[in-house]
């Protein structure tokens, strides 16, 4: 198991419960989607995986080690791509932004350069390496955010609403990126409220509501229950057809 979440609850400073007694195990190399309405606790749960938030009760284990024991290691292991790619960009140029993570890991200059070039090549942004990040398109910014975490060589990639405010080519580009990263052996965890774009590629679907995991299973077995939890059933499934990929 790469992730073991044991009886995790989280209470915010204002007393609101973000998570209620979550138990979840994620196997290495799987592609998992966490779905739920806005405010169901998806982002709060994701932020526990690399110690950006700490549980009020319970524990999160990453490859058998508590996340709280070694935060830097946990953040290197779990690369997080935020919903708002703009606010994730730290560097003044594309190259500098991707180098930010490896520089924080105190790597040698040659190793930083190797990782930056590899990550930019993987997401197809090598030709933009000297460009200002804020001049990139929405899809390119999201790919830059992915490159930024790839350069840290994580074992698991966590995407928080990766398709929000992207056009069709942007969605296809990010989706194919996710699929190739999954094929390369990364564990992928996606939080989304709209399953349409990604569900054809996932191994497992976890549904959250009011900070609790309410369903967990194979996507095809849960389609019929989605609307009861405020999640739109994929169009093909509604029409009794097999769900197909957005890349076809």
């Amino acid at each position, binding site marked *: 198991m790469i992730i073991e979440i044991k009886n995790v609850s989280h209470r915010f400073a204002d007393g609101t419960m973000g998570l209620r007694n979550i138990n979840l195990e994620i196997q290495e190399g799987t592609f998992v989607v966490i779905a739920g309405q806005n405010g169901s606790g998806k982002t709060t749960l994701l932020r526990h995986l*690399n110690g*950006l938030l700490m549980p009020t009760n319970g524990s999160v284990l990453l490859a058998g080690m508590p996340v709280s024991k070694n935060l*830097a290691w946990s*953040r*290197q292991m779990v690369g*997080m791509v*935020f919903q*708002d790619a*703009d*606010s*994730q*960009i*730290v*560097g*003044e*140029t594309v*190259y*500098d932004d991707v*180098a*930010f*993570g*490896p*520089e*924080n*890991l*105190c*790597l*040698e*200059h040659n190793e*930083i350069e190797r990782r930056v070039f590899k990550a930019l090549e993987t997401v197809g942004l090598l030709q933009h390496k*000297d460009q*200002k990040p*804020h*001049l990139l398109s929405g899809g390119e910014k999201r790919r830059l955010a992915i490159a*930024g*975490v790839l350069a*840290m060589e994580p074992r698991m990639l966590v995407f928080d609403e990766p398709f929000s405010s992207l056009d069709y080519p942007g969605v296809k580009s990010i989706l194919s990126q996710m699929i190739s990263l999954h094929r390369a052996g990364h564990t992928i965890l996606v939080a989304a409220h709209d399953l349409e774009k990604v569900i054809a590629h996932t191994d497992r679907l976890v549904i959250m509501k009011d900070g609790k995991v309410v369903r967990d299973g194979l996507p095809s077995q849960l389609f019929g229950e989605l609307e009861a939890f405020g999640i739109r059933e994929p169009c093909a499934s509604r029409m009794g057809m097999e769900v197909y990929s957005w890349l076809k």
Partner: protein
Amino acid sequence: MAEVSALSFRPGNSFLHRMDVRFKIVFVILISLASLKARGPGLFMLTSVLMMGLIHAGLHLKSVLKPLRYVFFFLLFVFMARSLSVPGSSVIEFKSISVTREGLFDGAMVCWRWVVVIMTGLSLILTTRPSEIRAAVEWSLNPVPLIPGKRMATMMSLIVRFVPVIFEQTGETLAAQRARCVENRKNPVYRLKVFGIPLMRRIFERADKLALAMEARCYSENRTSPRLSSDVWDWLALLGVVGLCIITVL
């Protein structure tokens, strides 16, 4: 946004691009100081050398003139203030206002000096990666006791990173308020309140998100700094610039 970007690093492989950033910062200081003392011929030499340097670096002067137009208004203001305030033989007189020959000459010299300083700064900014400038700041602050060089350098780079964000948020807030006819409200205090408060809130929210993203990527002060290296060409260029500055002030 594009105007902000016009005054930032542009990739290239010219001598200025390849030069060690620490030397470039020294050149900026030396040339700026020399321009304070230089008269017409000296300023002409400095301007010519800087112009050649910028053209050699592949920079089109036209593209940087537009974003600098407000600076030219400032220079015009300085020129007018000098023309009217320096005593001397009068060229134009209107009631109690008089423009003097000495004032016109002095104003022109002051503006020319400003142009030299701006061109020197541009040649640094347009040919140097911001991360290299950050590394040079860190390097220069390291020997200073009680000043955390790495933290200062990161703060500086975040300010540079945040300028476009502030412009973007300002533009969005303005557009959203115009869409709801804020221009019909003539009270400037009211307009400042409804514009300033949401803008500040949005900027702080963005800053919070940025801090979280930095934390997720293991940010710490103990991190690898960009590599700085100098070669014989940097030292030769230093000799050349020192020589140029001496000639211009003599």
